[in-house]
């Protein structure tokens, strides 16, 4: 379970998030939609503290992941990021072999011996629906894979360290329709074991993959409800306008 309480976030003087509170259920997919610059990616990156990497930012409020306030001083950020995995907009495999890409998180976190790593890599690739395509070329460079395969490799890489939450920042926006479909199916399968939060520009995608949807605009959470309700019968006029394509 993830919970955000009264979040305000600033880039220098600019307030990117305005008093946002929301809860995300375990074993479900929550989608964030909204026009560019609405703060949805900023909000997503709060949960693995990736915003820490950006200079001159400031955060107020509380973020709770698995009953821990992750902005507590005692929180170990490296441990948090193991617990909360992330998949980025553009596939970003390391310039290493397919095997080493998936093993990377295990190695840097000192998880398990050689045999465990071997097994875990295989499990992760199976979970990411990539195993059959790569099992004969685990020692080839990850760059030999197609964009869609690379993105699934990045998902496998995130799964390998056994996170409880997976954050996805427009994970299919750089992919072709068929690869996109595969990623969406994968998200659906992963839901039973993980809490998934996905940012997307594509409203059909949000409608297809998510259980709940949050609509962001100008740093505010305009509406947050069950995806079905949001797309069939939104409460707010802004939401209606956005999902019917009147702006954005």
């Amino acid at each position, binding site marked *: 379970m993830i919970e955000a309480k009264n979040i305000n976030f600033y880039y220098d003087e600019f307030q990117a998030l305005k008093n946002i509170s929301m809860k995300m259920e375990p074993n479900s997919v929550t989608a964030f939609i909204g026009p560019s610059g609405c703060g949805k990616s900023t909000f997503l990156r709060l949960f693995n503290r990736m915003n820490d990497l950006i200079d001159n930012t400031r955060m107020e409020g509380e973020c709770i992941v698995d009953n821990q306030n992750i902005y507590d001083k005692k929180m170990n950020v490296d441990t948090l*990021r*193991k617990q909360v995995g*992330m998949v980025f907009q553009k596939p*970003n495999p390391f310039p290493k072999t397919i095997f080493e890409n998936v093993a990377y*998180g295990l190695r840097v976190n000192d998880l398990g011996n050689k045999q465990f790593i071997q097994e875990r890599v295989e499990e992760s690739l199976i979970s990411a629906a990539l195993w059959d395509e790569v099992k004969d070329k685990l020692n080839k*460079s990850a*760059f030999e894979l197609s964009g869609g395969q690379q993105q699934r490799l990045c998902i496998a890489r995130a799964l390998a360290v056994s996170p409880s939450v997976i954050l996805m920042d427009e994970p299919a926006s750089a992919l072709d329709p068929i690869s996109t479909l595969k990623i969406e199916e994968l998200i659906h399968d992963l839901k039973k074991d993980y809490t998934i939060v996905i940012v997307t520009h594509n409203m059909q995608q949000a409608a297809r993959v998510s259980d709940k949807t949050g609509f962001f605009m100008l740093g505010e959470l305009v509406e947050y409800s069950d995806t079905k309700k949001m797309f069939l019968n939104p409460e707010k006029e802004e939401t209606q306008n956005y999902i019917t394509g009147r702006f954005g």
Partner: protein
Amino acid sequence: MNRKISQQIAFTLFRIFGLLVVVILFSILGFIVVNGIQVINWEFLTTAPKDGMTTGGIFPAIVGTFYLIVGSLLIAFPLGVMSAVYTNEYAGRGWIVKIIRMMTNNLAGIPSIVFGLFGMALFVNKLGFGDSILAGSLTLSVLVLPLIIRTTEEALKAVPDSFRTGSLALGATKLQTIRKVVLPTALPNIITGLILSVGRISGETAPILFTVAAYFLPHLPTSLYDQVMALPYHLYALATSGTDIEASRPMAYGTALVLIGIVLIMNLIASFIRRRLERKWKRN
């Protein structure tokens, strides 16, 4: 019509100037090869100079230059890479980095004879290393440090940020990210910097003049505190201050050829390694 002609004239001029560079390079190389090749033989490469440096070989100078290359790289390479990692990965964008960058650029612009003077004052006299491989290597390493820092920084900048965020997002620490992702990715380009440094170190005369180079020293060094002969200085000595300059002229050309040859071989080895590292990953 007029426009077309002026185009053609311009292109022709550019082409001539472009080719001029090639012509200049090849005339220098050709001149050295033609004049130097006649003295190159096994004896020349493996024995010490004889008869007031008019016959014999240049073996001690080859060995000396080799020691100086290895010695100064051992010092400058780790220092340069670490300092580039600091400025590029850790220091952010504050005024400290600006000052470090400015100083690095200034250091690169200092004439090499000044480094020689500095090396003599600090390493030879103040620290008491005397004229020695140690003092010479230290001086040369100060000289190539800016070059190594600059090329390493460029190499690190060329590593996409998505690799860094990807690694951090998996729970890797910053140090792990640098060691396991950033540095290996930057390595081919860092090696390019190393190649340039080898050329610089082996060719410089001024910095070794007061810190290590011996005019004539027929035996090989036995410790870090020994003087050595070195190719560029030997070339200078042969051309200006031998006992019989006319007679030792062919030896000078031979020395020049060997010097160029060493740099060339080093470059080839390094670019071979670089190419292999690159081929391993850059498929698309």
